[in-house]
């Protein structure tokens, strides 16, 4: 009992955010319910992003009804690699990544050979709402397959590593690189066993990481060090994330981005309830940073000013960047 109180006090002192605080002070306060569909439906997110001139993976087509499944061939065209996703999927479920195609068979990114019928069944499952939040009917999205930048080759196992930046009212507050592992099955979700690696907001250099709630500094599959890696085009990521506030109107979001070999930083999806493990990856509490941003916004409001995305990135980098490595 005494130990628990001590733990509580220590966590509080370090500004670690708990689920209750995240929900009460940030998600409920900054995220309007009626804006949720923008982030929950990947197709709407994509349309909004395109309208705002923000880079996203190209959308080949959308399948809304069982009848339209017949149009799959038409949508794919001559492409040999593509991704099929449920529009309202959660946690990376139901995503089918096709890496290659020969005759009428397809090879997934993990090397499994599947037939055209199996793909159609997968789409049908998506449409019935098997993967959607709350089991509603859903739409299937067929889009460009991201090829991760070579920089990640040494520190990731299969899959596509992505970058998650938490954005409060347009100000990036914390960033993390998510690396798939053998255990996560190529998925970049931390609760499925992926690694989260903290990123310095100012420089884009990786810090140490978290794996299954523990602090680590090496990738468990490749045993390469995950810290000290310079992510390319970091300011591009930061600006992309900061722009998402105008894109969706939600005040507290997690922006998931990838670095494509050819197309550079792309937005994958937005999350209205970003997880809290990013704190372990960065070895830093979110509450301190969000309070600093809230104070900054209050100051701006008093002066009657507002800042654009570029200025916001500068402010955030000035406040939280250049972390002294432990």
């Amino acid at each position, binding site marked *: 009992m005494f130990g628990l109180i001590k*733990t509580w006090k*220590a966590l509080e002192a370090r500004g670690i955010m*708990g689920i209750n*605080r995240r929900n009460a002070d940030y998600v409920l306060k900054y995220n309007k319910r009626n804006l949720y569909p923008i982030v929950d439906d990947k197709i709407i997110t994509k349309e909004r992003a395109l309208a705002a001139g923000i880079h996203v993976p190209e959308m080949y087509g959308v399948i809304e009804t069982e009848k339209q499944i017949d149009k799959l061939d038409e949508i794919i065209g001559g492409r040999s690699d593509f991704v099929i996703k449920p529009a309202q999927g959660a946690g990376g479920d139901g995503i089918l990544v096709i890496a290659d195609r020969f005759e009428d068979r397809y090879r997934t990114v993990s090397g499994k050979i599947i037939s055209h019928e199996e793909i159609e069944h997968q789409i049908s499952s998506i449409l*019935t709402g098997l993967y959607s939040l709350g089991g509603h009917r859903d739409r299937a999205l067929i889009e460009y397959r991201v090829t991760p930048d070579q920089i990640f080759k040494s520190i990731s196992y299969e899959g596509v590593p992505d970058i998650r930046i938490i954005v409060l009212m347009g100000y990036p507050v914390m960033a993390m690189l998510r690396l798939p592992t053998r255990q996560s099955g190529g998925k970049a979700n931390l609760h499925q066993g992926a690694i989260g690696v903290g990123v310095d907001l100012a420089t884009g250099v990786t810090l140490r990481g978290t794996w299954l709630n523990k602090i680590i500094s090496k990738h468990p599959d490749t045993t390469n060090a995950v810290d000290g890696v310079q992510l390319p085009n970091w300011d591009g990521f930061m600006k992309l994330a900061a722009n998402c506030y105008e894109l969706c109107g939600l005040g507290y979001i997690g922006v998931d981005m990838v670095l494509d070999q050819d197309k550079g930083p792309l937005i994958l999806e937005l999350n209205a309830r970003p997880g809290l493990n990013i704190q*372990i990856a960065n070895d830093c509490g979110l509450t301190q940073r969000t309070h600093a941003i809230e104070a900054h916004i209050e100051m701006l409001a008093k002066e009657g000013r507002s800042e654009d995305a570029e200025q916001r990135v500068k402010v955030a980098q000035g406040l939280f960047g250049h972390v002294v490595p432990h």
Partner: protein
Amino acid sequence: MRSLTLHLKVLITVLVLLGVAITAYQIFALGIPVTEDETDDLWNIDAKVEFVASSKDPVKVQMFVPPLNRDYVSLNESFISNNYGVSINRADGNRKVTWSARRASGNQTLYYRLVLTKRYSTEKTKIKGPTFRDSQAVEGPEKIAAEALMAPIRQHSADVETFVGETIKRVNNLNDDNVKLLLAGDTSSMKKAQVIDLLLSIAHVPLEKVHTIRLVADTPQTPELWLRSFNGNDWLYFNPDTGEQGLPNDRLLWWTGDDNLISVDGGKKASVTFSMNNSEMNAIRLAKLTDENTDADFLEYSLYGLPLQTQQTFMIMVMIPIGVLVILVLRNLIGIQTLGTFTPVLIALAFRETQLGFGIVLFTVITALGLSLRSYLEHLKLQMLPRLSVVLTFVVVLIAAISLFSHKLGLERGLSVALFPMVILTMTIERLSITWEERGGGHAMKVAIGTLFAASLAHLLMTVPEAVYFVFTFPAVLLILVGFMLAMGRYRGYRLTELVRFKAFLKKADA
């Protein structure tokens, strides 16, 4: 944000205060017992009337019975008599029963039985009484003696209360010559009361003789004489022998006035013997009986006013918020993961039918079998709705099979299964299997155990008989619960499991 917080605080305060106030009103003002075990005394009084009838004349027996207008309420009253006509009439605040028969002979026995209890409601009815009366005429030496006694009494008293008290004290001083003269050698209570009456009448102070019965079980007794005087607001009771003021709580007022308890025409050797015993009765049931016998209906607007069948449903329903509260605490304070939000409450309700231990076994078995079916169906690549239908049907068949087997084995417990909500089980299986696929078996087990634990705890708390009684009788308690839930709505501290989850930070700090 700040105004919202203030708004919330005010709302919580209002709800909690309202809940506490209503409950306190019910407990203290209406006197509704706090626990079900609380019982009230129920008095059973028998008055046995015996006399010898003379065969020539018609018989008419008159006896006073309690007027029951003060602290007691009658639940049942009966007059047991063969061949006698019975009538009751009220006069001067007394009630009198008249038994009459044209012809009777030999020893006669009549019974009067009264079942009564203390009145629940404490509200006072307006009491009226005389405050003035004319003096009784006295002549000669008695007048001198009375006046001699009056002088010091007047000096030593300030109001009606002290005046009466002082008078009784003087009259009980048997060495006083004036008193001796007035009593004329008779020192019985009755004679003393007469003298007191005389003295007070000279001072125009009203006085009534009150005949009471003591509510004590299994002791034979005769009516005890008390005196009472009205002071403008209330009756003041005095013991004629000791001057002691105030009627003890166990006295039941039987009749007032100078008349005898019983008068018999056409008979002789009349005697009345009292016997009484008390029994205890569940306070709420007693209150309901009381309600039926009086106009006071304080239970009318409580849940006890509902038909019995509905009451039983409500006894379960009012406990659901308690179960929900358990889930709320487990999820938001402790951080235990459960399937869905209120699934554990529904499972807890199902445990009512099956008992806890058996329910857990049943739940585990059916869910495990259902999960294996579900994973088999997964290979068939079925769509969601057909798959769910298959699982539901399988659950029904499984429950039927369990019921049949246990019946054949002579375990009646198995039959209660039929009421175990099948849809809840089906949804549990479906959700659990999705969790299994998405988050892996370990996580699914964790969630399943969390759900079972939450359901068991909710079930245990929801079936505590004292709690059920309390919430059912004082539903305003739910307002207090709502206040707590509202407060939880803005709780932003850590969950207990988060302290473990973020332990990595601490190791750092120590190193």
